[in-house]
């Protein structure tokens, strides 16, 4: 059986790995963080200082990162951006209730194994020819490698794939809070040692430690054991300046004035008591919609007609609709 042992990547790989290169070039931690911020920015991901710092630390300590925050603030996007920077493939595992190791880690290729046994049956006579007596036959059988449980018959699922990736990977375990407790426990070995134990094969180590992100929407408390093994990053809603920068990067066609107004409008919505407040992803969608409509600035009817992009509940739309004049006026006047 071949168990890959973690090795340092050859020099050529490091040059391609933007994160590591940025880290090597920078002299002080602050510079590393700043360069990570720049790299993320180049991928269209405008990060806050907390995010860039977290990435710097997670990457230096080689620890998994647990990202929490309200839906739509860019938890998943972060992993995608990191994958783009490092040039490592993004392997994504979406969690749901009932996810088990056969779907997350590996499965045996049963049908192939069955075929193998049949082939073996046919060949058995050849193999055992010449052996006399039961004892000799068994001894002869033992000389063969046990290929029945070998990597050839192993069907890798996302987690195992991430460990097998020769140049490392970015592993995104999305919405871990939706998975069962048992699955959480099952992840612990992977998270702390970057290895996985398969009963029939033994321990499989990562060829190159993957960069691991776990995301959670906080629908339930994760176990302490899991939290302990991860660094924890909370991404809140961005402030006005940051959100404007994000829109500038994501929807470059939106004009300065429109951008400022729409961000101010969304920010004021977040202060209201709504069932679901709009997140960054909704702001981006809305900005795109407005650009498609060739809007140059906000006005009441425009907002009224496109509000369903921002708000996902009829109750919320009605509630905002009542105050629309106020909100639009405020968004327009608040500008510098």
């Amino acid at each position, binding site marked *: 059986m071949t168990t890959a042992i973690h090795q340092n990547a050859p020099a050529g790989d490091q040059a391609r790995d933007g994160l590591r290169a940025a880290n090597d070039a920078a002299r002080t931690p*602050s510079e590393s963080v700043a360069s990570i911020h720049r790299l993320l920015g180049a991928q269209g991901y405008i990060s806050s200082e907390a995010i860039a710092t977290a990435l710097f630390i997670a990457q230096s300590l080689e620890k998994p990162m647990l990202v929490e925050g309200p839906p739509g603030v860019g938890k998943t996007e972060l992993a995608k951006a990191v994958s783009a920077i490092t040039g490592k493939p993004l392997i994504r595992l979406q969690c749901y209730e009932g996810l088990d190791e056969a779907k997350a880690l590996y499965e045996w290729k049963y049908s192939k194994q069955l075929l193998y046994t049949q082939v073996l049956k046919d060949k058995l006579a050849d193999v055992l020819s010449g052996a006399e007596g039961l004892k000799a036959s068994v001894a002869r059988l033992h000389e063969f490698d046990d290929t029945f449980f070998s990597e050839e018959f192993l069907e890798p699922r996302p987690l195992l794939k991430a460990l097998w990736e020769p140049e490392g990977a970015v592993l995104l375990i999305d919405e871990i809070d939706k998975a069962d407790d048992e699955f959480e426990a099952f992840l612990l070995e992977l998270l702390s040692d970057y290895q996985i134990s398969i009963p029939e094969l033994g321990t499989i180590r990562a060829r190159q430690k993957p960069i691991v992100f776990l995301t959670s929407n906080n629908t339930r408390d994760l176990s302490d054991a899991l939290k302990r093994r991860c660094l924890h990053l909370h991404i809140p809603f961005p402030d006005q300046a940051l959100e404007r920068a994000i829109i500038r990067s994501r929807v470059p066609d939106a004009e300065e004035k429109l951008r400022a107004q729409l961000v101010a409008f969304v920010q004021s919505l977040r202060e209201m008591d709504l069932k679901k407040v709009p997140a960054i992803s909704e702001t981006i969608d809305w900005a795109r919609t407005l650009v498609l409509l060739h809007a140059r600035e906000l006005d009441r009817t425009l907002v009224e007609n496109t509000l369903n992009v921002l708000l996902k509940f009829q109750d919320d739309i009605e509630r905002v609709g009542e105050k629309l004049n106020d909100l639009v006026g405020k968004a327009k006047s608040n500008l510098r």
Partner: protein
Amino acid sequence: MTQVLGEFIKALREADVRISPSEVIDAEAVLGLVGYEDRMLLAHGLSQALAKSDADKEAFWDVFDKFFAFAPFTPPEPANNAAGNCDAEEQGPDDQADGDDEEAGVTGMASSGGSGQGSGKATGKGEGKPGDKAGGDQDAGMFGAEGESLTMAEELAQLLEAGDSASLALRLAEAAQQAGLSDIRFFTQRGMYQWRILQLMGSEELGRWIDQAEGGSNAAAAARATRLRGLRAGLHEQVREYVETQMQLFAGNEGRRLREDMLASQRIGLIERSDMQIMQGLVRKMAKRLVSLHSRRRTKARRGTLDARRTIRANIQFEGVPFHTIWKRTKVDRPKVMLICDVSGSVAQVSRFLLLFLHSLHEVLPEVRSFAFSSNLGEVTELFDNYPPDVAMGRTLQRFGGSTDYGHAFRDFEQLALDDVDRRTTVIILGDARNNNGDPRADILQTIQQRAKRVLFLNPEHRSRWGSGDSVMPIYAAYCNRSISCGSLKELERVVTDLLRTAA
């Protein structure tokens, strides 16, 4: 581990942030990585390694701000800004890595510009600048040059006179560390620590010298002594404040925790009205814990019933040979609860907390109906679902307060809700079963028990008093699946936990 980090973690734990040893190791690695140069970088880094939930993050930022805050010292005269800043720059290179000096550097507080030396660690550096040394030699005669400790007093005197807040802060921090201030537990220890710190700073010696000099014949020395007396008083004040803030950091929660612990196990009837707010907070905390514990809907494998459809599907790959057997699972039902509470004077307080408790568990117990009675019985579910507990309880008492009549209440319940009691329903009755010698109507309770999944009777009185006087508890107990003596918050919690656990 560096002492600064150790004490910081101590302070965090004091603020109810749970930190495991492995997280401490992480924090240390983070510290090694980012260093103390950039305050925000340090804060973000440590928060990622140490605080892992929203509540923890909040506590973390609070403690971080307090712990890495600078300047317990306000110099007597306004310090010269320019000189202070200049000092800071000069000392830059031999700065010890230290969080405290960072605060000063980053925020650039005018009065503490010269605090580049920091104050968190006994580094031994930065004590006495060249000027101080010279001064020390000159004035040594005043103290009779008797030895080290006298020099310490003299140094202190000079620092006070020069208004050198940075060096004073450093000395204070060193003394505090030597005195083991971070071990402070109770507010009664404040005086002791204050005295020890002052002694370590040389203030005691200084005091002795001041007394001598003022009584002596040397006019110049006497004048200086008077001036120093004032400065020394200021120093005492500042040390007191310092000890106060450190105490908050390291032991701020100790008292509260003790108090909560006591309140939780005390009989609810005996608790003072003024503690009710704390009690409500406690109930909410307990409820929150139970919710997070039981929020996942459990399924239970029904061993013995094969899920034929899924088994066949799973075994197609083995040509239908059933390698994998899949068993049917049933979802564990959430219990339906009906709560019948006596709100007459004797048990009203206990009812209040049980009502509050069960209605705080809305997420795991979606179907709670509550009824209140003294003699008349009525439903109060709406009240407790929609109003804050104080208002709800007030209205309930207004409507249903009075003298107890269990028989009447059971009759009302029979009319109002008996039809809704089914095999999934747990009926909880809370009361002292003191019926004022009326008809107990145990027959209705019997009907309820026959229909319901189970009937629990919670009685705040101690078991030994059941049946004494007008108590009809023994009669009722016969028709209850369990009767429990339940007077304190802890006992209430146990009952509710049981309820959630045996929901299956």
